[in-house]
């Protein structure tokens, strides 16, 4: 009986109302055109992992050039053909590699791969919903994302090569096809791919927000939501408000490129030829780009923060320290992220007063960030820490976030930025604070929720190996870059051999390249572990981490519709770990207070006089019995 009921609800949450598709599921509807949020999450994750591996391999190729600029690697020519004639990467292709590496990592891995995976997986499961607000839109979101990936990769197969103007695609470099080979077809493909990508993330984000606000189960008020959901919610809001601005910027760029308008272009002379466009403002693009671009870095890091908060509380067997402060700091970051974009533009000739304003808003972000860092540290302080691989990566996130965040305070200063702008110091900063930290958060989530996705556990030993290689590797790669940056070495330069003052950094570059290669090899441990465990991993129990949140009340078999019977009701917040007086060290959200009389505290009842009275009576009776 109950299963028929689910079928009904499912059908009606789907888009079609007269199809009975769920009764006879085919391979195509189950794995390919799936509208089940859990399957879509897996699709996002696996696509994200594949894109991540591609992005990483691109970085290894340019690290080879930087590490051994004079050496020839015939193997590269075998694979890359004319882009690596004589076994050495060409300068144009080097720029393309840097550009596509950045684009893939920021957008495809850390936006879609991270938010897409965990929003889809966790929002319905942790809130107690059968599926998303619009499962059809959700499916469309994945297919747009995949299309964007394919188009982006296709740019490697065109004559003039992929886009090479940097992931920020500043005009005029990106706007004039004659500027570099990559600004021809490659750039066009980049822009088309981005349009698909933005459509995909908007469809996703609209769905996430609507689901979180409308489809929570009984008892799940906003202040009982796990921090993962808060983080994913605010991330989606950031996306909804900032991605349309990128659309505006990109549309104007397309007009400049293909129709001959001059929004961004002015006074250009290329190879002795005066370009027809006059009167444009390249700074306008930077404003539009960074109005998205800065919130984008929080779109990248906030889901990772939410995941880490959840995993750290679970594995420290302690409530998260300062739940409300964690939420308010996320809200603070969300709001502030919209008024700091100018700090990317300090050296564009910005009015120094305006620069000062942007500097102050930027430095204020240090406050919520510090609140979060200290709360994480206080959460693990004196906890019964279980060092699962997920926990290791969560701690890794905190470490990277602190060491990368500190340099943000340097860069946020308008005066210091004149020196540090566009140097390796910036590269070091953002690779630690949003690159490594967010990747750690993503991997943390994969290790932690793997049993929920595939019903099996990942191998722990390989997990530890993966963690240490990644953690140490990332520090060895990015830490030396700070010193290069302080010495004024600019980013995106092809050959360090051409400049006298950069020559002394050649040995450091070789070292960094070795570290990068070893860290990359470390990922093989993860890939093997991930794909092998899907089929051969140890079978997971229903609640392998003894966690409180709702997703662990669903059966291991992962039903379409999530819960076989009714959706459970929620009675308490998700962080009742090691509550004094209770026999186990965790109390799931579905356990009512009436079943935990021995551990209830006065503030649990939120001022409900009747409940308080019952508790007092029980306490008195129990005291009497003890005596």
């Amino acid at each position: 009986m109950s299963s028929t009921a689910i079928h009904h609800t499912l059908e009606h949450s789907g888009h079609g109302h007269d199809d009975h598709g769920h009764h006879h599921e085919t391979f195509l509807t189950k794995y390919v055109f799936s509208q089940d949020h859990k399957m879509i999450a897996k699709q996002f994750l696996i696509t994200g992992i594949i894109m991540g591996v591609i992005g990483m391999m691109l970085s290894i190729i340019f690290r080879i050039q930087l590490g051994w600029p004079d050496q020839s690697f015939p193997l590269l020519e075998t694979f890359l053909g004319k882009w690596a004639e004589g076994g050495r990467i060409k300068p144009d292709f080097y720029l393309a590699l840097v550009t596509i590496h950045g684009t893939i990592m920021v957008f495809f891995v850390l936006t879609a791969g991270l938010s897409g995976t965990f929003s889809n997986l966790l929002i319905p499961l942790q809130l107690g919903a059968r599926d998303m607000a619009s499962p059809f839109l959700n499916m469309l979101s994945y297919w747009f994302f995949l299309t964007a990936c394919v188009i982006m990769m296709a740019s490697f197969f065109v004559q003039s090569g992929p886009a090479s103007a940097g992931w920020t695609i500043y005009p005029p470099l990106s706007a004039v096809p004659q500027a570099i080979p990559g600004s021809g077809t490659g750039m066009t493909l980049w822009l088309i791919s981005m349009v698909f990508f933005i459509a995909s993330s908007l469809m996703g984000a609209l769905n996430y927000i609507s689901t979180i606000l409308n489809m929570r189960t009984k008892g799940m008020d906003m202040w009982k939501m796990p921090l993962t959901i808060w983080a994913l919610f605010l991330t989606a809001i950031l996306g909804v408000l900032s991605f349309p601005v990128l659309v505006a910027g990109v549309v104007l760029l397309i007009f400049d490129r293909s129709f001959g308008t001059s929004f961004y272009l002015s006074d250009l002379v290329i190879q002795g030829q005066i370009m027809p466009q006059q009167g444009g403002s390249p700074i306008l693009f930077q404003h539009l780009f960074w109005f998205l671009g800065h919130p984008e870095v929080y779109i990248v890091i906030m889901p990772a923060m939410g995941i880490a908060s959840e995993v750290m509380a679970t594995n420290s067997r302690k409530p998260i320290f300062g739940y409300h402060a964690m939420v308010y700091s996320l809200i603070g970051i969300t709001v502030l992220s919209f008024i700091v974009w100018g700090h990317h533009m300090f050296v564009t000739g910005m009015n120094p007063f305006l620069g000062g304003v942007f500097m102050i808003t930027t430095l204020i972000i240090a406050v919520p960030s510090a609140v979060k860092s200290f709360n994480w540290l206080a959460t693990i302080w004196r906890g019964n820490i279980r060092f699962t691989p997920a926990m290791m990566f969560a701690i890794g996130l905190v470490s990277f976030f602190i060491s990368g965040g500190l340099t943000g305070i340097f860069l946020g200063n308008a005066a210091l930025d004149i020196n540090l702008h566009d140097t390796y110091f910036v590269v070091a900063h953002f690779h630690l604070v949003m690159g490594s930290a967010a990747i750690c958060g993503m991997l943390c989530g994969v290790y932690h929720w793997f049993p929920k996705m595939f019903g099996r556990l990942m191998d722990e030993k390989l997990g530890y190996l993966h963690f240490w290689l990644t953690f140490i590797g990332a520090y060895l790669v990015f830490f030396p870059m700070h010193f290069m940056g302080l010495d004024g070495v600019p980013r995106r330069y092809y050959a360090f051999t051409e400049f006298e003052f950069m020559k002394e950094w050649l040995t450091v570059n070789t070292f960094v390249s070795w570290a990068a290669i070893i860290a990359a090899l470390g990922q093989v441990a993860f890939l093997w572990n991930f794909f092998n465990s899907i089929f051969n991993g140890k079978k997971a129990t229903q609640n392998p981490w003894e966690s409180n949140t709702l997703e662990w009340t669903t059966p291991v078999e992962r039903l379409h519709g999530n819960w076989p019977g009714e959706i459970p009701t929620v009675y308490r917040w998700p962080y009742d770990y090691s509550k004094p007086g209770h026999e186990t060290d965790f109390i799931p959200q579905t356990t009512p207070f009436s079943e935990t009389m021995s551990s209830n505290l006065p503030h649990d009842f939120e001022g409900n006089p009747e409940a308080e009275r019952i508790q007092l009576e029980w306490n008195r009776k129990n005291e009497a019995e003890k005596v």
Partner: protein
Amino acid sequence: MAVMLENSVEQDRLNLKPKKFLMWLFVITSFMLFAALTSGFIVYTAGDPSRGIKMILPKLFMYSTCAIILSSVTMHLAYKSAKALKFTAQKMYLALTILLGVLFFVLQIQAWKGFVADGVFFINPNASQSFIYVITGTHLLHIFAGIIVLITALGGIMKNIPQVRNLFRMEMASIFWHFLDILWIYLYVFLLLNQ
């Protein structure tokens, strides 16, 4: 079984709320797009005294504004008749809304023709003038989408879909259409203030 069916109908209705909410969220995204374009215009135009609209906006914009405001009125009447189960009136008002939408579309294109005749081109060293095309063009793209939404709603009532669905489509259409109306008024006032 009867109870269950009733249950599922109830569920069905409940599930429309999050979908309607999606439309509101889409309105916000779409508004952000126009906010970006208009702030882009401000940033660009403030950069140099040689920039700016530097022309009087055509009378046609007045007419098109009247058309779209009128279409909002008919949209509301269509919605009200749908609620009152007056389906003939609903069809008529919906068709009228679509017609006015098409009229708006045509008037905007005519206004563009007028620009070209006056020598205000899209490809222009004074990009403030190109911005007029981009802003009105992007809005027209939304109008196009809006007309499709209206046609879907009309198609629904022609096929006699259940009243719950009909009302849902009407609500979606009216949220979107009224938004497009208000959006145009914002854009028009914005352009007027900058001319």
